[in-house]
């Protein structure tokens, strides 16, 4: 049975339709694997009963010849997505007993298409982190280890549980959210494929809000084709999210394997940052060579405001977070810490319910939005954001079809290695991914190789708005050249 968990979504789809195995068998194989892998802490909630029921319904539809696009495909859902009658915590103490009465639009579309829920995956508290270490439910241990070492490594974050679950074969695919790199960085750290689509491509309705102008949902998978399959189901216009775009969702899978001949690929020179490890530089070069061999043309481009993306992000994201998280007041849902008066109730509830990183970001956000500081910080950051977006628009206007960059400045690090006194050290993880959120563009991270210690590294492709299809075509070229990467199983 164990080989069932190693299938791609495309292969499982074919196997289910050919009745080589049932959706029930496929779900069961995953539930067994999940139980054995609890040491990773990838799941914060397993939903075996629901998985069995959904798989049974899928088998019935397959038998009647009524299979939908994702019929019987077992998936993990990041705990930022509300799931009806299934606990949704956002990795926070303040929501650790929250049971939504509704599904997020994205998850409901997965169920509409026949997918099976295996459970909810761990994430940094309110998706604020790059290592999954800020989760109230504890850190996730990456299924990857350095060669000859037992040091537990982070899977990246904030979607660390989803990335680990997909890499460790505890789900065929998973959902993530990406505000500054929370899909692409963990994908790179775990050797999985992760795409953050264009802002507006997926509905944000029913996803626990972090920074509304930056948040986007996207899939984690073990192949580029699988990412194309999942995104097609996740994307689409939703009247309940006014920032979701009313554009037809293309058949992304048709772009997988399409020729990239003649495409112009921008190589942004500002991404060649000081102190970039030689291995990352080499990987990037390798990626350029692969795309060139497939007929694409490399063009050096300049995105002059790149270095300001991360500081601008650390104004915009906390500002929006401080507003969004004002709703956690101990009155309508979530944790309540009793106090004598209403003000005391708010203050005590929020002090106890939010972890350190979340409190810090709310306070930064409150400060930059406060009277007298708004113009100096928030307004200036939003102007810088316009300039960052303009850089990309200029490059695309000059005929660039997509850009190639490293996904992260390093491979995965050890648990506890970067949680020291200076929060900036952790923030620097997102230096290559955050620009994409600031400009609202699509970005995909594709596994491209292993470093000297045997850890996965990823390359990022950045596309024009709503041109995810080109990213899938280019991503497939990298996957064909680099191959796929699977961690050696050291857990039970």
């Amino acid at each position, binding site marked *: 049975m164990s080989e069932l968990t190693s299938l791609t979504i495309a292969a499982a789809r074919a196997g289910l339709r050919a009745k080589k195995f049932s959706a029930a068998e496929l779900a069961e194989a995953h539930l067994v694997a999940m139980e054995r892998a609890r040491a990773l802490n990838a799941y914060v909630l397993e939903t075996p009963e629901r998985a069995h029921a959904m798989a049974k319904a899928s088998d019935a539809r397959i038998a009647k010849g009524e299979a939908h696009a994702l019929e019987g495909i077992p998936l993990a859902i990041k705990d930022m997505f509300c799931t009806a009658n299934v606990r949704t915590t956002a990795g926070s103490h303040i929501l650790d*007993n929250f049971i939504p009465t509704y599904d997020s639009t994205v998850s409901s579309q997965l169920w509409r298409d026949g997918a099976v829920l295996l459970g909810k995956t761990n994430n940094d508290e309110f998706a604020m982190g790059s290592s999954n270490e800020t989760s109230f439910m504890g850190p996730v241990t990456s299924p990857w280890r350095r060669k000859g070492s037992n040091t537990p490594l982070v899977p990246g974050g904030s979607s660390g549980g989803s990335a680990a679950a997909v890499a460790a074969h505890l789900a065929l695919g998973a959902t993530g959210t990406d505000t500054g790199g929370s899909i692409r960085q963990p994908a790179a750290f775990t050797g999985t494929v992760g795409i953050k689509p264009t802002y507006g491509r997926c509905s944000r309705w029913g996803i626990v809000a972090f920074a509304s102008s930056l948040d986007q949902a996207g899939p984690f998978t073990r192949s580029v084709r699988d990412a194309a399959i999942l995104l097609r189901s996740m994307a689409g216009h939703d009247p309940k999210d006014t*920032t979701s775009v009313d554009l037809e969702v293309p058949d992304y899978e048709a772009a997988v394997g399409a020729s990239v001949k003649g495409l112009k690929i921008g190589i942004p020179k500002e991404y060649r940052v000081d102190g970039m490890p030689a291995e990352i530089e080499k990987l990037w070069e390798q990626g350029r060579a692969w795309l060139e061999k497939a007929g694409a043309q490399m063009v050096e481009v300049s995105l002059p405001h790149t270095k300001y993306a991360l*500081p601008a992000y650390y104004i915009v994201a906390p500002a929006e977070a401080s507003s969004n998280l004002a709703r956690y*007041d101990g009155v309508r849902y979530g944790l309540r810490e009793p106090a004598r008066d209403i003000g005391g109730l708010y203050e005590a509830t929020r002090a106890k319910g939010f972890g350190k990183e979340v409190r810090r970001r709310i306070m930064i956000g409150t400060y930059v939005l406060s009277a007298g500081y708004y113009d100096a910080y928030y307004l200036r950051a939003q102007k810088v954001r316009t300039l960052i977006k303009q850089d990309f628009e200029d490059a695309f206007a000059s005929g660039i079809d997509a850009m190639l960059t490293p996904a992260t400045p390093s491979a995965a690090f050890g648990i506890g290695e970067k949680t020291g006194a200076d929060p900036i050290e952790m923030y620097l993880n997102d230096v290559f991914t955050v620009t994409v959120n600031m400009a609202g563009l699509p970005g995909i991270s594709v596994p491209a190789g292993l470093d000297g210690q045997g850890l996965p590294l990823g390359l990022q492709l950045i596309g024009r708005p709503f041109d995810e299809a080109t990213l899938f075509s280019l991503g497939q070229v990298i996957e064909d050249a680099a191959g796929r990467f699977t961690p050696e199983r050291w857990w039970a």
Partner: protein
Amino acid sequence: MSVDSATVRRIAHLARIAVADDEVEHLRGEINSILAFVEQLSEVDVAGVEPMTSVTPMVMKKRADEVTDGGDADAVLRNAPAREGNFFLVPKVVE
């Protein structure tokens, strides 16, 4: 720009987060380290630049102003930490 401990307490109050006395100094250090990091934005020339207000240029869709949902107090109150009938319960606000 950097903040002093009085400002840390003021921000905490604005954010409605109780902060213990022994946390203030630590928070001050962290907040100042982030403020120092974002300080580099002051070197960018933003004269005449419009602040970003919409990530994707689009006209917001509008719908008819009519009730499309509601009438389910039980679902709304399901996760309430304290309720009485169809009301959320809070400590006395008005004397």
